[in-house]
């Protein structure tokens, strides 16, 4: 078998995704005058960035065969906590540190319930989803409003709107960093290897002396930490913290990961695939908005993308298993 056909066979999903992205871009550049502008691209990437930051960690978590539905709530909670502390005189660096710890706290609850006790991740993390969201609303209420917006210090907003090298928004730099870190972890480190092994066969991993509980727990903590960082970033960029922000974000994350070829059962997947999946989601959403398609059609399109991506995933999986 020559190299090209081997590449095409093993990387079918990525090739398909690149094809879809290119197609969307070509169609949109002809149909919408606003598409090929720096402003629009920046917007798309800013939206994608938050998904990718969280999904880079969540992707490895799904490779172990677990997942986290509480990321959107942790993001909202972290934004609110950070804003609340900044507004009430806590220095911004300290506030960030405390917020990150709080986010990791949510992660450790997930790690405890799912990995240590062994509750199904869907149930356990939906539990955290509700509690974290509820607390976010509660803190906003203590502050006296629906959102925390008035009275925030200047540094609060400056952080998220910072431009690196005078051009690139911080969120995009963080996205690239998260991608780089997780490509490295996935391909080059013990944690990456163990994650694949756990997802491929948890029982065999345990009997091989791999610390299954430790690795999965660690990933839950990192996912929560990244969700927390995204919360700080988002609140700061927008200039307000809202408790109802990022509702349904867990599904954006999961759709990106599954589109990217990661198996929900674990053992298979890649960070690069996830990134391509996130770009498909980002550009598809952008296109629907640019073409002025009403939001309910967007919702339908979104559902279709999810189902098609799962079918695609399944088909490719079967082909490999059969050969």
């Amino acid at each position, binding site marked *: 078998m020559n190299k090209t056909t081997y590449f095409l066979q093993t990387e079918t999903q990525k090739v398909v995704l690149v094809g879809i992205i290119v197609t969307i871009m070509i169609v949109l550049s002809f149909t919408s005058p606003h598409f090929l502008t720096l402003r629009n691209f920046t917007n798309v990437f800013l939206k994608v960035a938050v998904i990718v930051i969280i999904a880079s960690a969540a992707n490895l978590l799904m490779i172990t065969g677990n997942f986290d539905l509480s990321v959107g709530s942790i993001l909202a909670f972290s934004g609110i906590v950070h804003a609340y502390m900044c507004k009430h005189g806590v220095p911004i660096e300290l506030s960030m540190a405390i917020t990150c710890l709080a986010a990791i706290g949510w992660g450790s609850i997930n790690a405890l319930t799912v990995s240590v006790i062994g509750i199904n991740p869907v149930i356990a993390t939906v539990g955290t989803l509700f509690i974290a969201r509820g607390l976010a609303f509660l803190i906003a209420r203590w502050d006296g409003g629906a959102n925390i917006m008035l009275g925030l210090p200047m540094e609060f907003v400056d952080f998220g709107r910072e431009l690196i090298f005078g051009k690139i928004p911080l969120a995009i730099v963080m996205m690239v960093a998260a991608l780089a870190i997780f490509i490295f972890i996935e391909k080059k480190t013990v944690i990456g*290897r163990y994650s694949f*092994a756990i997802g491929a066969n948890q029982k065999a991993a345990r009997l091989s002396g791999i610390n299954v509980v430790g690795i999965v727990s660690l990933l839950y903590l990192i996912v929560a930490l990244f969700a927390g960082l995204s919360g700080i970033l988002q609140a700061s960029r927008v200039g307000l913290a809202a408790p109802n922000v990022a509702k349904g974000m867990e599904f954006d994350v999961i759709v990106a990961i599954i589109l990217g070829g990661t198996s929900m059962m674990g053992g298979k997947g890649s960070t690069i695939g996830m990134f391509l999946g996130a770009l498909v989601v980002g550009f598809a959403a952008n296109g629907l908005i640019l073409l002025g398609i009403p939001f309910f059609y967007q919702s339908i399109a979104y559902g279709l993308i999810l189902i098609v991506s799962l079918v695609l995933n399944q088909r490719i999986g079967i082909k490999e298993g059969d050969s």
Partner: protein
Amino acid sequence: MAHQENAIEIRNVGKEFPGVRALKGVSFDIIKNTVHCIVGENGAGKSTLIKILTGAYEKSSGEITLNGKPFSPLKVRDAMSGGISVLYQELNVVDELTVEGNLTLGKEKHQFWFPTKADDLKIAEDILKSFDESIKLKTLVGSLSVAQKQVIEITKALCAECSVLIMDEPTAALSLGETGKLFKIVEQLKKNGVTIIYITHKLSEIFEIGDFVSVFKDGDMVATQPIEGMTSTDLVKMMLGKVVAESYIPSKGDRSEKILEVKNIRTRKLQNISFELFKGEILGFYGLVGAGKTEVSEILYGHEYEGEVRINRKLANFKGVRGAVSSGLALVPEERREEGIFGLLGIRENIPLMKLTNILKHGVVNRQKENQLADRYIKMFSIAARDRNHQLALLSGGNQQKVVISKCLNRESDIILMDEPTRGVDVGAKVEIHNIIRELANQGKSIIVFSSELQEIVNLCDRIVLMYDGAVRETLHNGDDISMDHIMEVVAGKEV
């Protein structure tokens, strides 16, 4: 047998998959009212032929006649209506239904959607009773034994008026007694005019019930011969193309250094288990199902117990699997697919998993070291794979097991526990794995083999621990004077 009639005639039947010729044009006859055995290593082409006969695959070339008429089933249904039924290795009964429900499943009669009794039930009941009087129609199938469930499957096949019954390794899950029962049923089926195609890995069964045997190798039919007058050496020779008569070869190393000592282990199941293991020794544990072999391996691999385990004279008070592994133990588990291999991953990724530090350079996975490690084991154990990236799930059982053993060796453990090391592995690979185990012992590893196959224990082990009812009954030194009969008596609980 002058007037023998052929139930099935196979002429130049071939099957090609993209890039592979799975079946290279085989021809032979299956005579009516006989038990025709088909043997061959995994991947020899026997399951391809069966799938063609049952309509799961379409043949690429050749002719088949069934009872004198041309037969080329395109769907599984065609084969069924042609009178061919299959008894698969995995049972397809519904545990939650009664015997009656299972027998009439799929052909329930109904009136205005209310089910009424099927007429065929009477016939089914008669067939069932002719095999096993004790099975009641109202019993839940889940409460029956595996052999009884098989009887129900056979009854279902006979109700479908099959003239040819294909049995695919039917005894894989059966105990000795149940196997005997099944063989009686096979005899009876023969009397009733059913032709049986019997697929098995166990050579002894062929001699017990077979009339003819066809040997498959590399997609070809090597020979079809009557069983009468054939010896098992002949058969193995045909299967492998060479003679492999295995017998006990003592491990060569100096076996005086005690590496493991187990004293008075007690759990709910085990009573005062004591034994010792020396460096360079193969120690075997033999006993019937439920004798406590598995429990012993579990204790060594981190389960809780009362008593004393010493490794290299030091008290081993580790907890859990990770403690066992870091104390120098490694396990080749019984259930290879569920507990041993990482099916989605390649050979390259599987082998280093118990000790990744062997492929790290500056704390980071080094591709070159990883490739070298994989290639070394692939060569050492002649693992048959396309390349080092070959997915484990797609390898044959024997090659999967070699990878699992490689994984344990890479851990550089001194003591390797092997639970049923050759279960589900074909004859050729079995001999290879036995040789690997002997070689490891000669290199100074200590190995404990837990096996329910007496021949394997006797061929392989230097000393044999016999277990019955949670206790060690006797420990034997292997040698010429070893008596299988005596062993069978001990493990069956006879006082010694």
